[in-house]
């Protein structure tokens, strides 16, 4: 029977998000076993449970079965529904953890997604909302996902461990995606950034800016780092500060780097000067890696290429991150798609490390949930 589509089976909790997202998009059920089976505290964590709840909210007809210890998860995807949703994310992970998956799913829902996410906007683990706003959104625009309603707004900032941040993400619906040919990364024409501080002295942000500029000024003069000091209810529940930097090139690609202070009560205090300098170095590191898509969004770009029409898409990437490599394997098992991978050596030019040119033919994905009126 048609309902018993061949399901896929995996072990371990790593890459849970990609598995569930790809399962939702491909319509193939997935079974994940041995989730932290050998650990003292086995089973799904709060943040994973919260992610599954979020998936349940934006889909219709999904079947989720978790065993008693939480070590086995069976997920049979329903149709992506979307609409107006509110979700309280777990404070164990940043909002970026949830938002990354939503970016993959939002263009293919039935009703345009407008979601309010509450939790930690900036932390040290996940890509922060600032970075996603600056890099992932322009990337989606390349695929033809654009419009007035396409925005990501940071209403409140929340730092770990307390959280209390809030972002609003809205995305229009597309039936098909455009193929992309991003092979020329261009040259970096400007660097922008956001130094934020909540529940600490507003001077912190300025100190970050100065130290970051001191490093970046050696490369390019066009640098502007905004300072964002949120007060009152908008400042969340915990103190903290951080910096996110974005380099924009002439051909419209965005490379990013970010750093945040240690959460309150964990680790040693970080000097804002150090943080600024380190973050600037991270940006240089990212520029050294290069490519048309920055390292956090590699998998997003590859996914959207896969979901394109049956046309050739190309993208030039920096070195593939372990997350991306696993994602490519998952793409193969869910969509039977293989990328042509060509290594482009750096050569004579002083343009950082080796690049990888990824080429694929889209699978001809079309949004089956979108209504025709």
């Amino acid at each position, binding site marked *: 029977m048609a309902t018993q589509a061949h399901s896929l089976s995996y072990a371990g909790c790593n890459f849970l998000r990609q598995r569930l997202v790809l399962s939702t998009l491909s319509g193939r059920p997935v079974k994940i076993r041995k989730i932290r089976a*050998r650990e003292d505290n086995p089973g799904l964590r709060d943040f994973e449970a919260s992610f599954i709840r979020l998936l349940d909210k934006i889909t219709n*007809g999904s079947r989720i079965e978790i065993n008693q210890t939480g070590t086995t998860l069976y997920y049979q995807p329903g149709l992506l529904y979307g609409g107006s949703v509110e979700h309280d994310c777990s404070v164990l992970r940043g909002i970026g953890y949830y938002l990354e998956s939503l970016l993959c799913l939002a263009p293919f829902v039935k009703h345009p997604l407008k979601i309010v996410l509450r939790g930690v906007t900036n932390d040290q683990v996940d890509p922060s909302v600032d970075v996603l706003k600056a890099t992932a959104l322009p990337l989606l625009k390349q695929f033809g996902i654009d419009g007035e309603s396409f925005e990501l707004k940071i209403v409140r900032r929340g730092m770990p461990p307390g959280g209390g941040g809030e972002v609003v993400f809205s995305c229009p619906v597309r039936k098909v995606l455009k*193929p992309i040919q991003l092979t020329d990364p261009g040259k970096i024409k400007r660097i922008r950034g956001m130094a934020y501080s909540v529940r600490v002295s507003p001077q912190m942000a300025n100190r970050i800016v100065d130290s970051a500029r001191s490093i970046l000024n050696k490369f390019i003069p066009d640098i502007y780092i905004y300072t964002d000091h949120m007060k009152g209810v908008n400042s969340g529940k915990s103190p903290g500060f951080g910096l996110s930097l974005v380099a924009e090139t002439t051909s419209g690609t965005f490379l990013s780097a970010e750093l945040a202070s240690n959460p309150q009560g964990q680790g040693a205090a970080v000097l804002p000067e150090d943080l600024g300098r380190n973050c600037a*170095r991270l940006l240089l590191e990212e*520029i050294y890696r290069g490519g048309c898509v920055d390292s956090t969004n590699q998998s997003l770009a590859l996914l959207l290429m896969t979901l394109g029409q049956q046309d050739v898409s190309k993208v030039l990437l920096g070195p593939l991150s372990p997350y991306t490599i696993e994602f*490519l394997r998952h793409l193969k098992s869910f969509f039977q798609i293989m990328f042509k991978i060509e290594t482009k*050596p750096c050569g004579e030019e002083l343009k950082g490390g080796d690049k990888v040119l990824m080429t694929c033919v889209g699978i001809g994905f079309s949004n089956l949930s979108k209504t025709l009126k």
Partner: protein
Amino acid sequence: MEAKDQKKHRKKNSGPKAAKKKKRHLQDLQLGDEEDARKRNPKAFAVQSAVRMARSFHRTQDLKTKKHHIPVVDRTPLEPPPIVVVVMGPPKVGKSTLIQCLIRNFTRQKLTEIRGPVTIVSGKKRRLTIIECGCDINMMIDLAKVADLVLMLIDASFGFEMETFEFLNICQVHGFPKIMGVLTHLDSFKHNKQLKKTKKRLKHRFWTEVYPGAKLFYLSGMVHGEYQNQEIHNLGRFITVMKFRPLTWQTSHPYILADRMEDLTNPEDIRTNIKCDRKVSLYGYLRGAHLKNKSQIHMPGVGDFAVSDISFLPDPCALPEQQKKRCLNEKEKLVYAPLSGVGGVLYDKDAVYVDLGGSHGFQDEVGPTHELVQSLISTHSTIDAKMASSRVTLFSDSKPLGSEDIDNQGLMMPKEEKQMDLNTGRMRRKAIFGDEDESGDSDDEEEDEMSEDDGLENGSSDEEAEEEENAEMTDQYMAVKGIKRRKLELEEDSEMDLPAFADSDDDLERSSAEEGEAEEADESSEEEDCTAGEKGISGSKAAGEGSKAGLSPANCQSDRVNLEKSLLMKKAALPTFDSGHCTAEEVFASEDESEESSSLSAEEEDSENEEAIRKKLSKPSQVSSGQKLGPQNFIDETSDIENLLKEEEDYKEENNDSKETSGALKWKEDLSRKAAEAFLRQQQAAPNLRKLIYGTVTEDNEEEDDDTREELGGLFRVNQPDRECKHKADSLDCSRFLVEAPHDWDLEEVMNSIRDCFVTGKWEEDKDAAKVLAEDEELYGDFEDLETGDVHKGKSGPNTQNEDIEKEVKEEIDPDEEESAKKKHLDKKRKLKEMFDAEYDEGESTYFDDLKGEMQKQAQLNRAEFEDQDDEARVQYEGFRPGMYVRVEIENVPCEFVQNFDPHYPIILGGLGNSEGNVGYVQMRLKKHRWYKKILKSRDPIIFSVGWRRFQTIPLYYIEDHNGRQRLLKYTPQHMHCGAAFWGPITPQGTGFLAIQSVSGIMLKITQLIQSKFPFAFNLPTSFSGMFNSALEVAKFEGAVIRTVSGIRGQIKKALRAPEGAFRASFEDKLLMSDIVFMRTWYPVSIPAFYNPVTSLLKPVGEKDTWSGMRTTGQLRLAHGVRLKANKDSLYKVLVAQSLTLSPKL
């Protein structure tokens, strides 16, 4: 008589000649040209009305834009699949005759019995797959979905029949293929006038159905039971040159019209259980879109399956190679119809099928079964023998252990037996690769032969030499002979193993290695660290070195001989190496040999080897074998060998040589080598990365590691510490790519490494701002300011003049300079033209043009991207492309499909997109067909044909109210669209569908498909009196709308204290006491989850059109004679008019 026959000359009234004459005549009359009418009489052509002019302009523009279609990317393959021609018509209309005639026309062959599709080459660039469509509605539906062209046969003596219209209506919803009408039985008309009239009538009726001007062919009569040659020829011409419009469904889904089916099920399984699920392979041309391995497909009439394996085969009916000639020669006029028994020898992945003529019936399934039996009979070796020859690898990079290794550890096994086993290489392979057992013995032999042939081709000289050598050395030591024989075996083994590895190994890897072959040819032996070919070489090197260790220093010559030997061995392994397979076995084999050789007494071996090799060497160089060779001679000989070997070996040999002689890594100092290595690293990086990503798949391997766990006391298990991969499986799920080894960004050179990433860095030649500016300066430097009248020059006057003069002088001297100047001038001109074009043409290019250009660019890119790659690699990336002849393996097919196989019925494999295999709630908009007499009832099961599928389901009909609420309808409206919702397969939006009551019924309704998932509701009338039971109930309905039968609207306000359930309401008008008040409440209706695919192909032969599914309640009642219990109140009673009794007037 003659005078009478001659026709009188008629003057031309039209045409160029007449026009010329007329013109001359007018000129003679001094009236001037006709063309000059505008000039002659300008008033007549003046604008009379601006409005009218605007309108006419508007109209022309409208007509122009109407012709526009949304541009789509052209994805048609370079070598398209054959065009599917469906010959359709009512019974006895001449379908089979027409097909026979067409085949005869194109191929000069006569097929007596036609079963299933027939593929023929009809022209230089076109092939046709002709298939007959009977009158079974299932067949009509299926074929309408795959047809490119429909030849609709109409019996003119009878007129149109219902089948024709049914088929037309089916075509309408499933994308309209090209339809060509063919009128037959025209010879039955006695009177010419009647014939003409009939033709005209039929033609016009046909036009209303298809489109005005649709081609209708007339086949006037039969000659010897066949249609007239000329007419068939014309029809063939029409088909050959016909152009097709892409249909949405067909271009977005891959599909195969299978022309061959083989049952691959294990006969033993069938023997034990005749009803077991079968494994079948289906063959056919892939059409539509790319098909990927392991994707989901639907077989109409059978069900959903997952492709378990797919491979492409050589085209059995290929287009001619060169296109120089105008027409095909006889050899190229191919016909391929395996179901009808035409096609000759068929090559398959694991078998060769030879057509044995008419007796080769399909149903008896002689081919595979017979082969399997053959293979069973010819299995000589016992399981012990297989065990002995099987090998196991304990560690990934260790050599595999054979049974002989275990022998050495104490297990008893006769040595002779082992030798014998090693002689039979085929057996060994069978054991190692269990999946090869299935393939028949005969083709094994075939393979062996082929590989031997290959071997002969690759290293013929080598083998010759060795053969001769063997002949000479018959009286020499047995041990040496053993070695030689082993060597020969080795050659065979490694080659024979090749196909097995092709199965087990990553195909892609091989192809990538093949790509790199050209480069390998002139690269060093160090090039491939990862491939086993390299391992083989290193192994042989090791062998050489190993034997060296056991040598006396004086025997340095024989040392070299050893080296030569190892080189020869390498050569033996060459075919494998070329194809880039990781033949670990090969490594093992060579090592094995070295072991064996070292086990011999060193001196003996050396001397023997020396002699043997010397003989070998002497052969090409024509030096007698007994001659004693000095070192100088030896080098000569080496070079001779080199001549024999390929170029790549050259390099390796030299390497080894130098390594042997010098001992040091002198060659590494070679700069060119270093450069080559660097180049190779680049070349290797990509496959490595690919291998890194796709080579190892981290699937769930729990079972395996459960087995490896030790058991303690049979009850407890040792909990081994987590392995690294397990640890990885539970690690943090984060997309950020952390920097492991950060650079020190304070260092100048590190900073410089990214200098050019910034706009402040160095630009490429063509983009450098300074250069571009300079060029522009050159071009646009001179300009005249029109307002002021100043003339600006790029450079100051005198200077330029001077320069000009200088230039002239220079030009005289230097012809090169002249040329460059010319080029510059041309460049300048071109740039100016571009500028001009940009300025003036930009207005012309519309959005439509841009879009079209974009699509064209994309299409070009799609074509070019994978063009240079071979098919093996290509199918990995883009899937199997349309036009390929593929073989699809499917498992778990119901046995009835094989048992009741009827080649007359089309077998279609329709590819499904993502989540098109899932079932859910589907909504559609439909309308009852105008020819269906009844209306449709909700909850009556009905058969839908949507996408590839035909299935029975229970729809609920609804109509959408103004507020978006979907109100259930008990019956469909008569002449209006309504919605339907049912439980069925998810299908892309906008797909056409049709529904039939039963497979032998008539079509009902047709339209677009829309999807959503919403609850439904219908109305429930309730009366006013006693509407509620309690005040609480009333409170829940406060504010609800109520109305009277006459349409007076009101609202529930508030509950009253007494009586219980009474409420106060307000109305827009005054009510009468007799008014009944309704409140409409809504109740969600659930849709029955009933989805039953029509499995018509599983029915026995001859009964395939008798499939019946769930019956409607009406049919059940009729069958069982159960009458509906009527509500007494609903019965019509005879109304007896009461006589009016008027009250008496007072």
